């Protein structure tokens, strides 16, 4: 699709021809993830996580559909039906643990994918829209995960719903009516549970739609690569199939082994025990924590403790939303023409500090709102915003990047011409 040397699709059978003239779907697949899609030949393992994310989306959809056959979204029955799945439904325990841990692993995969993009500058021109569509997927994932967590109607479900919809009440005037409208009541109740179930079922398909758009946008310039250097000649690429189907395939299996091991041996390690207590609207658990993938944002939310023009609560909510919305502007905040962090000595250092900052925020998010955690989350929040708004624009001005390789093939093959010939074209 993208490069002149991409192999055109040629149907091999009569039937293939017949279909191709009527519905060129096999042609599209061939050009998207088949032999007709040339990919930089130097991709490392960090590039496996996009496909892996797609695999987890599928796992979530399949396990989710079967769970919905047993789950009951009434406030009196939701908790019991979840326990029923765990105890009585054939392999129900497996399906639910697979779904719950699948969500966590989906986030692990997506976070690695995002940090890959951050380090290798994948968000830079001409892939800004790929990055932004990815952020849309991420936002949809967060909404889906939140609503899914409410469904078992345990204590953490209920109070998570209360606290998260409470964010909206921070906005002046419209806030409280908006919250009541979202919940369909004054507190999470039947109306809220049923609509969360409805939307939780819908969202993955919306995500799948955005993923299709994202893949489409990606295939215009093609994948980025660890050097960040543009593809120049046929020598720089390999056809997606069989090279990357094989590499992705083995990596998916390897990663699934970790996922399956956690699902079978530590199924509750990533959850919270309080969610095995049925929701009680009159008593809050002593210590409310969201799921691990929200911890850094929860820390940002709680970092604001003093009123300054606006109430502290509104600042916290605005900062939390801003911390994600900011990422949409990243392609224009980091102006360095060099994509890959490998060739950016200063960027590399600050990237590591940034990772440490996210981890710090994550720890603060799970700790109770007491000193020193409040102070540390304030420092962490300040640094988070400084990284994007001050540090990145500055280092793209100050830094002297290392010399870039002439081409992808030169960088990987050290001049061994025979090896750098495209698949099937090497002179014997």
């Amino acid at each position: 699709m993208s490069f002149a040397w991409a192999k055109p699709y040629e149907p091999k059978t009569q039937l293939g021809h017949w279909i191709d003239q009527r519905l060129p779907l096999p042609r599209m697949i061939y050009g998207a993830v088949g032999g007709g899609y040339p990919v930089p030949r130097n991709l490392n393992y960090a590039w496996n996580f996009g496909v892996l994310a797609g695999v987890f989306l599928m796992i979530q959809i399949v396990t989710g559909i079967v769970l919905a056959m047993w789950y009951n979204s009434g406030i009196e029955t939701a908790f019991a039906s979840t326990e029923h799945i765990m105890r009585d439904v054939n392999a129900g325990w497996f399906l639910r643990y697979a779904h719950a841990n699948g969500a966590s692993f989906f986030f692990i995969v997506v976070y690695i994918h995002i940090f890959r993009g951050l380090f290798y500058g994948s968000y830079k021109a001409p892939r800004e829209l790929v990055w932004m569509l990815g952020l849309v997927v991420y936002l949809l994932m967060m909404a889906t995960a939140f609503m899914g967590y409410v469904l078992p109607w345990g204590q953490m479900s209920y109070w998570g719903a209360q606290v998260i919809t409470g964010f909206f009440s921070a906005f002046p005037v419209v806030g409280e009516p908006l919250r009541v409208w979202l919940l369909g009541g004054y507190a999470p109740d039947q109306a809220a549970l049923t609509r969360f179930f409805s939307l939780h079922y819908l969202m993955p398909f919306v995500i799948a739609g955005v993923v299709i758009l994202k893949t489409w946008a990606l295939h215009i310039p093609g994948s980025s690569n660890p050097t960040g250097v543009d593809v120049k000649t046929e020598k720089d690429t390999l056809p997606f199939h069989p090279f990357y189907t094989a590499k992705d395939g083995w990596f998916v299996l390897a990663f699934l082994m970790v996922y399956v091991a956690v699902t079978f041996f530590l199924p509750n390690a990533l959850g919270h025990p309080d969610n095995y207590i049925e929701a009680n609207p009159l008593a809050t658990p002593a210590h409310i924590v969201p799921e691990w993938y929200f911890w850094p944002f929860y820390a940002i939310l709680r970092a604001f403790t003093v009123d300054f023009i606006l109430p502290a609560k509104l600042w916290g909510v605005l900062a939390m939303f801003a911390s994600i919305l900011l990422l949409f502007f990243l392609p224009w905040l980091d102006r360095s023409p060099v994509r890959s962090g490998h060739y950016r000595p200063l960027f590399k250092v600050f990237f590591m500090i940034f990772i440490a900052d996210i981890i710090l925020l994550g720890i603060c998010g799970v700790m109770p709102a007491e000193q020193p955690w409040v102070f540390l989350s304030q420092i962490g929040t300040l640094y988070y915003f400084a990284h994007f708004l001050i540090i990145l624009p500055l280092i793209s001005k100050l830094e002297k990047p290392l010399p870039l390789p002439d081409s992808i093939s030169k960088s990987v093959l050290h001049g061994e011409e025979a090896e750098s010939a495209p698949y099937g074209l090497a002179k014997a």
Partner: protein
Amino acid sequence: MATVEQPDPLLKEDNAGDGNDGVRRRDFLDIAAVSFGVVGVGAVAFPLVNQMAPPADVMALASIEVDLTNIAEGQAIKASWRKQPVFIRNLTQAEIDEANAVDVSGLRDKESLAERTKEGKANWLVTMGVCTHLGCVPTGVVTGENKGDYNGYFCPCHGSHYDTAGRIRKGPAPTNLVVPEFEFLDDSTIRIG
């Protein structure tokens, strides 16, 4: 085949307006069709959006009556109103004095105990049991629970401390615990809502 030039009757009609006011019949039809479409979309969108609002049965739970006779001095109960907890506390004289001793102008949400209770019934503190930060239920109703640094209520979620008048004193909550609309039906019964 030869084609015969024939004036299109529709076009002719369209152009007929030109000499008069510049409005073609087609313009009128366009505007009418689009307006009709917009009104139609709006008419369908409204119920779709509005169905999300609280239904009639939830609104019907809008008021409850609570009997106060069993709440001894210094004790509190939780009632449930609109599916949310309401704290009803019978303040002791010491707690009332403590609340009145505070300089109101130094508070985040400046309200005196008198403004938060009914005249002559300053001992009955009725508040929502919903933290004004993000909506957790504060502790301090049941004896032995953490009452926070100001001897009122404490919200465990993000550490908001409320005083004996249910006013925010420390922590992230922006306002005092909300006093719902209520009235005394007689000396020992209140109606909330």
